[in-house]
């Protein structure tokens, strides 16, 4: 295999510069003393202090965190079931519709998803009296719906990678499907469940458009607060908040990758040992 040319790497370097320079500038200016975001006047952490005394912001962050946690948990549950249906259940009536419904939210413009779900909630309240008004519950339902699509794709590709001979063998030895799922399938797809959970969490905590449609009084999320502040112009406080968010997410991403690589290594080692043991018998 020939190594890729130097010009290709120059291009790659430019690409990464494009992706990272705006973020780096944002982080640097969060430590700027001046109220003017684009004029450097000295190092200061006062915007971070201002951040932690902003009650509206903290309340919204707490709302967003709770919704994201509950969304990610439900999406992993629903996505696991959907992934099993897609990969292990063979053909069934309505499978085309099923898979179309699963992949549609990946590309659906957010304004359409948001509007349609709001109209559903309004119609449901009219007809059934439930959900009463809109708030964290309706945001949660909307977020579970669109994040499950992403989680399902991750789990499906993981289930595809595995050959199901181990599952078949366990089934032949008399294990019930439920037991096979909990004892064999679940541990093997665990890394996919973790990355699916994290992706759903970040997608939920990041969503502005869909939440704006289905939110009610008292359920203002963090992106909604950021958005209304950003509309008024650039402020160093938002830079500080952005820096915190970027920092936390980078940390989580690095930890997950490290964890995933370790799990993968461990699994490979175990497989090799099992093979050696099998051969020596």
């Amino acid at each position: 295999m020939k190594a890729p040319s130097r010009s290709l790497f120059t291009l790659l370097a430019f690409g990464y510069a494009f992706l990272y320079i705006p973020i780096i500038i944002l982080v640097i200016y969060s430590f700027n003393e001046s109220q003017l975001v684009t004029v450097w006047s000295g190092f200061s952490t006062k915007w971070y202090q201002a951040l932690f005394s902003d009650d509206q912001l903290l309340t919204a962050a707490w709302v967003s965190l709770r919704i994201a946690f509950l969304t990610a948990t439900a999406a992993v549950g629903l996505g696991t079931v959907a992934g099993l249906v897609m990969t292990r259940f063979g053909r069934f009536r309505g499978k085309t519709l099923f898979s179309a419904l699963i992949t549609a939210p990946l590309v659906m413009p957010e304004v359409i998803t948001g509007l349609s779900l709001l109209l559903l909630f309004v119609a449901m309240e009219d007809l059934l009296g439930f959900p009463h008004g809109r708030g964290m519950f309706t945001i949660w339902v909307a977020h579970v719906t669109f994040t499950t699509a992403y989680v399902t794709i991750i789990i499906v590709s993981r289930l595809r990678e595995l050959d199901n001979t181990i599952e078949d063998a366990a089934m032949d030895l008399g294990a019930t499907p439920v037991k096979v799922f909990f004892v064999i399938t679940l541990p093997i797809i665990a890394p996919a469940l973790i990355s699916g959970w994290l992706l759903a969490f970040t997608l939920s905590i990041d969503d502005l458009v869909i939440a704006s449609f289905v939110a009610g009084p008292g359920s203002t999320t963090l992106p909604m607060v950021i958005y209304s502040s950003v509309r008024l112009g650039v402020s160093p406080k938002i830079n500080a908040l952005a820096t915190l968010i970027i920092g936390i997410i980078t940390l989580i991403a690095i930890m997950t990758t490290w964890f995933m690589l370790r799990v993968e290594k461990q699994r490979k080692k175990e497989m090799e040992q099992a093979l050696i043991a099998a051969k020596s018998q």
Partner: protein
Amino acid sequence: MKHALQLALPSGRFFITSIPFLWFIVFLLIPFAIVFKISFSETAIAVPPYTSLVSTINDTIQLTLNLGNYLYLLTDSLYAAAYLNSIKIAFFSTLLCLLIGYPMAYAIARTQSPLRNLLLMLVVLPSWTSFLIRVYAWIGILKNNGLLNNFLISLGIIDTPLPLLHTNFAVYLGIVYAYLPFMILPLYANLVKMDWNLLDAASDLGARPWKSFLTITLPLSAAGIISGSMLVFIPVVGEFVIPDLLGGPDTLMIGKILWQEFFNNRDWPVASSVAVVMLLLLMGPILLFNRHQNKQIQN
């Protein structure tokens, strides 16, 4: 015992399948039907702010389908212009993402494992950080007294700040910036499976690098190009945040119009008909994406 289990199995499967199936029917399919329904009603000062399609007059049930909203979309040239402009912007930004993303995905796919994982993570990482924040980052760079203008003035290239923010240029920049990872990832996933020996064989047989790229690499990566392009094009047509924060008053995009109809004018029926027309326009690309995605899953 086993016999009883086998009898129970199909219904168990049916039950398990029905959980996600019902969820998506109730929260995805039915909502679209409701949008379709409300697009035929009229605005009313009521809660909810639209008229009912079905009414009883003199004990007979009447169904009134009001096509007024669609006529309104047709007659007011603003909407047609917004649809066309959204598709134009989405098309060219998809093309730009492809032109920038393809070489990047290609280069990543050709590096060796430890470096490759790092490079891949560096592409994914920005897409995990907040979308809103990444769009916001450009405001500070592009505005009149922003970093780019200050920088160009200090170099003496320009005397007065260039109007960069609130232009179509800023919208393109923001879209390409925000959606580039969605182009690179499927392209990478496709290119990494490529058998590079084919390229070596072609060059041994005397093919120039460009020729082997056009006749081997490009056709073999068609699946990745389609996935990536659809992942960029379809959401960008309905994009709201980027035209709202980076675009100017003349940046007409249909996602922003829908938002304004809903939140500013509180006209739910017109917002619904805007959504229905957008869905119809996007039906082709969405079906293409679906079919493609399912083929990927099947294999």
